[in-house]
């Protein structure tokens, strides 16, 4: 379990704690105001000056001696901020974790606060100019996004009941999108996204710049060497380049140090050879998120 489970998990995983989904919590941290400000012009998050610095050419800035280190430290502090005066326009306290489909279903079926909506993905819109309805938001955030017409799908039903939401997340996951659950702002949980690398703003910062906007999941993939038929279908699904087909071994190997434990590879396997095992099973991976 990560630090956030210790702080907000009530003895379990942070996203399995029903309290983190409650309207009472949202009210206590004044999430309504925060979300309104944050979503009003979310596309500007990388363009705005934050303490005089924009995210433009962040890769270069982070590699600078001394300045880069200070920048990384303050960015991490911002991303994980639990302070009273969080700034919504720079998304303070907004980060998430990768979850397998099973856990996403439990969240949408039992924990998520109504109303549940499915709106256009913000990240695909700003990084590719594509409108694809695959972000499932709930609780107070639904009401905030509903007022922003550019994120609301036209001609289709965007308000979902629990069964529909579960069916949709399953469809996205099988397509190859990675399910992620988000604090917005910590500890209030109100979104399950279906992310793609590199379009996702969170995965972009994590994979390309090493900032902890998205944590790896509680699981890692494991291939059963007896069942694997070396067809390589799972390799095509992995968003993180973790799986590799080794012809000499006639099976697929997993780079568990890089594995995010999303479980998307399982859907491509016809032989039921991949399963998710808890990260804790590997001593070297314990506490590494």
């Amino acid at each position, binding site marked *: 379990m990560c630090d956030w489970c210790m702080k907000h998990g009530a003895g379990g995983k942070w996203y399995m704690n029903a309290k983190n989904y409650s309207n009472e919590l949202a009210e206590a941290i004044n999430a309504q105001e925060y979300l309104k400000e944050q979503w009003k*012009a979310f596309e500007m998050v990388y363009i705005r000056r934050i303490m005089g610095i924009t995210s*433009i050419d962040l*890769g*270069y800035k982070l590699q600078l001696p001394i300045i880069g280190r200070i920048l990384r430290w303050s960015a991490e502090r911002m991303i994980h901020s639990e302070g009273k005066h969080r700034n919504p326009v720079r998304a303070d306290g907004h980060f998430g974790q990768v979850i397998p489909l099973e856990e996403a279903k439990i969240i949408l079926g039992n924990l998520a606060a109504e109303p549940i909506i499915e709106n256009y993905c913000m990240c695909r819109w700003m990084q590719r100019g*594509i409108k694809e309805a695959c972000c499932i938001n709930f609780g107070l955030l639904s009401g905030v996004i509903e007022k922003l017409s550019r994120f609301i799908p036209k001609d289709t039903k965007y308000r979902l009941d629990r069964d529909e939401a579960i069916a949709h997340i399953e469809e996205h996951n099988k397509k190859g999108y990675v399910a992620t659950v988000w604090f917005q702002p910590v500890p209030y949980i109100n979104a399950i996204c279906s992310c793609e690398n590199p379009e996702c703003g969170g995965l972009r910062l994590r994979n390309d710049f090493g900032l902890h906007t998205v944590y790896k999941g509680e699981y890692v993939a494991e291939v059963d060497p007896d069942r694997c038929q070396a067809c390589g279908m799972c390799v095509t699904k992995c968003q993180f380049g973790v799986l590799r087909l080794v012809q000499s071994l006639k099976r697929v190997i997993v780079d568990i140090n890089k594995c995010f434990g999303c479980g998307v590879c399982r859907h491509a396997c016809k032989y039921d050879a991949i399963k998710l095992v808890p990260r804790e099973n590997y001593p070297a991976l314990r506490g590494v998120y």
Partner: protein
Amino acid sequence: MFPKKSPKVTIDYTKCGEKGQMDPRDCAKCLRVCDPAIFILHESPNMPIDPVDPKYWRITPVWLSLCNMCMKCVKVCPLGAITVSR
């Protein structure tokens, strides 16, 4: 000691953007042709922002360190608004 400088990617906002001939939302070809997805589509910061439905948009190359200078965006831009240089 200092890291390698990133490529310079510039967009001529007199051609594309709030004052240009085309709304970048309708084109967005550069966003899609770029494998590392270094561009970001966003509201124009210089114009009054309509919080519900912003009318003025522009594209900014943001993740410059990931640019491989493949020049696909330069070729695909119908207005010839993009330049890539060292």
